[in-house]
């Protein structure tokens, strides 16, 4: 695929998204809900860019994490319009989660330090990384979205059912705003439950039949430390191949 990115001619393999192509070319596009190990989601819209399709007169604003590179497109990632839209989105985000350092820093980086909208004070930015990790990589489907519209939230079924959670902590690991504390809550439940007290790494599928002898105080445990040191990321994410990179 031949296309133009910020004025320069580039090529990419079929199936590459504009975001992937941009990152491969060293161009920084903010994208809160995107993650190398997960399918693109397109919820935060911060990755918007302007694209002029082959043969069309006016550019379109599209989410680069989802838009597939096509022959002949012209991509601009930092036009005045895009900068204005990004600021608008960050202002909305800041109104939702003013207390989250991640949000404040990201907004400040793009010149947004205050918001004119009323504050929700919800640290969860609904990026969906936790839900998608649990579903796509861990396969436990212990948490999901519920409700719709402004009431949308992340929770386990009926708000209380953690039974499918294997306490791997991948959700807490990927959460950018530390809005999830599942690992801690679930671990407390595991301590209370009767039965064998299987090691969390057995639950995650890395060891067979190991039993926990530290009452789930994992931060003291050598096994936990070994797994974390070996992977540069959360153990559940370590095995997953990142999506194909673009040849830029």
């Amino acid at each position, binding site marked *: 695929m031949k296309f133009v990115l910020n004025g320069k001619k580039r090529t990419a393999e079929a199936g590459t998204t504009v975001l992937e192509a941009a990152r491969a070319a060293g161009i920084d596009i903010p994208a809160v809900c995107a993650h190398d190990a997960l399918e693109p989601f397109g919820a935060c819209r911060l990755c918007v860019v302007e694209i002029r399709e082959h043969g069309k007169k006016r550019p379109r604003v599209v989410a680069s994490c989802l838009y597939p590179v096509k022959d002949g497109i012209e991509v601009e990632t930092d036009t005045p319009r895009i900068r204005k839209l990004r600021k608008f989105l960050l202002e909305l985000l800041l109104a939702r989660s003013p207390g989250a350092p991640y949000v404040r820093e990201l907004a400040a980086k793009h010149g947004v330090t205050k918001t004119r909208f009323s504050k929700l004070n919800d640290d969860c930015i609904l990026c969906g990384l936790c*839900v998608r990790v649990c579903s796509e990589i861990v396969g436990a489907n212990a948490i999901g979205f*519920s409700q719709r519209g402004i009431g949308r939230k992340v929770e386990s*079924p009926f708000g209380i059912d953690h039974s499918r959670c294997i306490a791997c902590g991948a959700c807490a690991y990927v959460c950018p705003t530390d809005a999830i504390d599942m690992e801690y809550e679930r671990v407390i439940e595991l301590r209370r439950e009767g039965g064998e007290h299987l090691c969390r790494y057995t639950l995650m599928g890395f060891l067979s039949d190991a039993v926990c002898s530290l009452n789930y105080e994992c931060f003291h445990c050598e096994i936990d430390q070994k797994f974390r040191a070996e992977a540069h990321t959360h153990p559940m994410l370590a095995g997953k191949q990142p999506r194909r990179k673009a040849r830029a």
Partner: protein
Amino acid sequence: MSDAGSMRTIRDVLLPGRAGVAAPASGGVSGERAVQRILESHGRMASQIIAILQDLQALRQYLPEAELRLISRELDVPLTRLYAIATFYKAFRLVPRGRHEISLCTGTACHVRGAMRVKDAIEREIKIAAGGTTLDMRFSFETIRCLGCCGQAPVMMVDGELVSRLDHLTVGKALEKYK
């Protein structure tokens, strides 16, 4: 074919058990068998989950937690997905509702013809806000968008029957017969 029997109302279509229209022969068996029958009737396909939940709700008037768990196991569909569906679509309820369900249309035509005043009048009459159920479980009241009877706006549906050309001064009387 249209002559057979009297006109069926919306109530008959929605609630076969309640209205006394011939329900399936084994209406009244244990919970699990009824659920299994619903699953079978939809080929046990996960893509049919919305229709399955609609049938379950028609049977139970809401979606009981235990039966959702059963469906999750039987269809091998994560409970989170069922819960997401049950809370996303407004047709579903996870808690039982009142004996009489009042649905007031607040579509644009009804709105322009004074539906909000009718809403206030109903709230004053049954003493609960829209979205709630009275303590004695007699009435549930909700607002919905557009029943499609815009020519007779404002309109409400009580237990599946339409009451049209409402007026904030007379709606109280219209509800008398349900008290």
